[in-house]
């Protein structure tokens, strides 16, 4: 699930946007605070425009002075599919979290055995 505070990591760096052509750099303060996502006061403005019979232009502007020194924008097309959406059985097959946790526990046991 992608949420607002994942924006910096999950979006590709905007290229067609009006200003920045490289990834926006987070403020040192945010990095020092160990925060990889956005701040609670982030404001996102989305503009969804139908630019073609089967194309939406999806543009977004992120304003978050606690995290980024200046606002940044991105834009990408959403193309209509000749397809249908299905149920996504996420929780049922979510072994990622359990495997990561059990992997770390296994690593801890290895390290414990070294002492």
């Amino acid at each position, binding site marked *: 699930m992608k949420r607002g505070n994942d924006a910096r990591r999950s979006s590709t760096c905007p290229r067609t946007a009006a200003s920045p052509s490289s990834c926006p750099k987070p403020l040192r303060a945010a990095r020092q605070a160990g925060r990889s996502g956005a701040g609670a006061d982030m404001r996102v403005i989305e503009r969804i425009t139908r630019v073609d019979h089967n194309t939406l232009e999806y543009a977004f502007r992120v304003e978050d002075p606690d995290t980024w020194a200046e606002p940044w924008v991105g834009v990408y097309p959403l193309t209509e599919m000749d397809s*249908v*959406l*299905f*149920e996504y059985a996420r*929780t*049922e097959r979510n072994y990622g979290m359990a495997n990561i946790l059990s992997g770390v526990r296994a690593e801890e046991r290895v390290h414990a055995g070294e002492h």
Partner: protein
Amino acid sequence: MRIMDPFGLTVGALSAVLCVATALAQQGVPAVPAVPAEKTAAIVLDPSWKAPRTSWGHPSLEGVWSTDDMRSVPYERPEEIGERAELTPDEFAARARRNSEDLDRSRNQQTFSGRNDVGVRTFGYTSLVVDPPNGRLPPMTDAALARRAVRDEGTYGPGPFNSHEDFTLYDRCITRGILGGALPVSYGNGMRIVQTPQSVAISYEMIHDTRIIDIDGRPPLDAGLRQYLGSSRGHWEGETLVVETRNLTDQTSFGRNGRGPRHSAAMTMTERFTRIDPDMIEYIITAQDPEAYTAPFTVRFMYTTQPDYRIFEYSCHEGNTAVSQGLSGERAYERAVAEAQAKGLPSPVRIPSSDSLAPLPTDEDAFFDINAGE
């Protein structure tokens, strides 16, 4: 969910809404209705009444709805009432008085969960099940009963809990199924309906399932493709949206919150949505599943509007300590048994989670509360 702050003011300071909320809070004990709500529907008062239309001419079901008003109607009819589908005037007066007291408590006293999830209307039905005529779900088949498992009741049942799969799909934040998503429960009975010319979408606040019902005449999905919410295709029959669903799994159930013994993947259902009033949608669902139920059955209830009701994000996983606590409680009980045995003492009695709200034994050493976790 209807959200009000401790002063009875609605979150979100629109002045018009504020006035309504303040008026509600100052109402004191709500008036006791004299007539069952179904007899006040616009279509009953004026049979020529028609639902408002969408811009493309379909009857409009759009809006935010809830089944809170149906909380006081039993799912299955008490056996002593037999085939009588409506309350007597005395029974109705008693239910209406209870509802009024519940609403008063909800508005003016309670601070606990459910405080703002009490309905504002009283219906006169004796059960939500309307067919078979006795208002009770038909018996399940031996094959369906043979499939019963701990997971059918999850945290509502006695366990034992040895895996996350020993919990219901609701406990696990996955789904409550088609009927379970709408059947009234103690909170979170809201849903939002949005229409287009080609589809009708129903979003349920609890578990945030969204059903997309295609009404453009396309065929159902291939029978091999199974989903918790199946494959739904709808069409308008006059004022009524008729929805046929198949391609279900054998993992959902027809109890409240989608719990109980599971039906089979052969189940098909027909739902009928009819707007009978600016503030009421009559919802009738008929299910047939010869593999799991000995007869078809029909359930009916109303979706209604509620003052200041809005749909919010539902943080199911974030607040879901039930699964981890059920599992850790079970492990703790196993350790307690092992320790007792090692000391040659009798094993502590395991209190099943379904009894955890019952009065507890007074001798605190004599029991182990599975819900207490660690």
